[in-house]
């Protein structure tokens, strides 16, 4: 995406009319572009005014229900303790991390139903393990999304759904987000592939979804891949992608 392309996204961004990965790319741009940050702040405040005419009183029961939930919900700590809270840099870093984590969390929630916020409602014992897992995953995703060389590739699924890939070559990592893919037969699954310059004959598997699974978010290795693809394969996966069954593919730069 060129600089002028990304500038022109400010309106769509302020309206939340971008997808998660575009949002991350745009927020990365914002951190390097002060005039853009000011413009977005103003456009967001403007958009906020559009909620005024939409106002409707919620059912009265919502109030006590929200206040009860709040009374049971622990609050997140600001930033990390090892960073100075007062410096501008730390504040920017906190926002960067918040943005990345928020996106990762929403991607996770949308993809596989494991949002970080659901963790707060579980049993204390469960929560520790679940939180550690979710946190490790969120950190890994956040690290890729926050990389300075991240590239975002969007691949509409052949039969519906979307496959998005954020590639951070500097980290040899990518985040693949599969959403809303059509359900398959009981003996078929989706499989992820990294494809090197030699083409699909040298494709390397980057994971197989379970039977019935139509959405996923995972961190994968890039290796010498220059293309990413998703195919439909027999249950358990294949050694090489079935070429007629590739439902999404996209290239990224080296």
């Amino acid at each position, binding site marked *: 995406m060129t600089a002028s392309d990304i500038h022109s996204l*400010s*309106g769509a961004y302020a309206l939340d*009319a971008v*997808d998660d990965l575009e949002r991350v790319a745009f927020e990365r741009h914002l951190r390097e572009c002060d005039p853009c940050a000011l413009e977005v702040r103003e456009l967001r405040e403007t958009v906020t*005014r559009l909620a005024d005419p939409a106002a*409707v009183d*919620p059912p009265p029961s919502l109030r006590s229900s929200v206040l009860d939930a709040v009374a049971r919900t622990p*609050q*997140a700590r600001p930033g990390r303790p090892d960073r100075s809270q007062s410096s501008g840099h730390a504040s920017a870093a906190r926002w960067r991390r918040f943005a990345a984590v928020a996106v990762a969390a929403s991607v996770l929630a949308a993809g596989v139903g494991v949002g970080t916020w659901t963790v707060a409602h579980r049993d204390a014992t469960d929560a520790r393990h679940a939180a550690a897992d979710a946190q490790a995953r969120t950190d890994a995703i956040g690290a890729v999304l926050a990389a300075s060389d991240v590239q975002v590739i969007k691949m509409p699924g052949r039969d519906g759904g979307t496959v998005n890939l954020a590639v951070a070559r500097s980290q040899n990592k990518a985040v693949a987000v599969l959403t*809303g893919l059509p359900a398959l037969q009981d003996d078929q699954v989706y499989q992820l592939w990294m494809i090197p310059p030699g083409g699909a004959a040298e494709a390397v598997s980057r994971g197989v979804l379970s039977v019935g699974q139509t959405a996923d978010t995972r961190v994968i290795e890039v290796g010498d891949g220059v293309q990413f693809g998703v195919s439909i394969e027999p249950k358990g996966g294949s050694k090489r992608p079935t070429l007629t069954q590739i439902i999404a593919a996209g290239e990224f730069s080296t």
Partner: protein
Amino acid sequence: MTNPGEGETRTTDMPPVSRGRAQRGTPAPEPAGSDPNELLRRVARGDEAAFAALYDQLAPRLYGLVLRVVRDPAIAEEVTQEALVEAWRSAARFDQDKGSAVSWMLTIAHRRAVDRVRSEQAASNRLRKAATTDVPYDDVVEQATTRIERQQVRRCIDGLTGLQREAILLAYYRGYTYREVSDLLETPLPTVKTRMRDGLIRLRDCLGVTA
């Protein structure tokens, strides 16, 4: 939930059908000591009373906005609650340098609503459904303009070009991405992006919004 006056009135110049209803939905003037920015800072320190006060100020806007996007009152209630609990959890991350408390909370609610409608169906399915069930954008645009009680917002929306208005309201009130708006309006992608931006800039100037 049925709202008298919503959906039936189609003429921009009509006064609100039920003024009492409209007034209740309109954000109350904010008395001294209840500045949302200050309240949210107190919430960040665990102040539940401040959160309740914020709720009272913002709930109609949060719920109304979410309801517009998700369209189902039960889902709207659920999403509004999730958004409010998320705001409580992450209040310590609110930074007024990045925007006002009202904007921060509405952004959380809007994103959650949008996530909900976008995750329910693949984008292509939503578009197909939109095309076949014929719930067109005119509807949104007209509802929005008839229900605008605040003269200024209304006047400013009226001051947009047709395409600016449709692009902005479809995105904000329906949760469409700019790609989907481009398909719905059969308008090239770069044009839609540009109209969203220059439309919002025009609204900003008309409303006198400053950051």
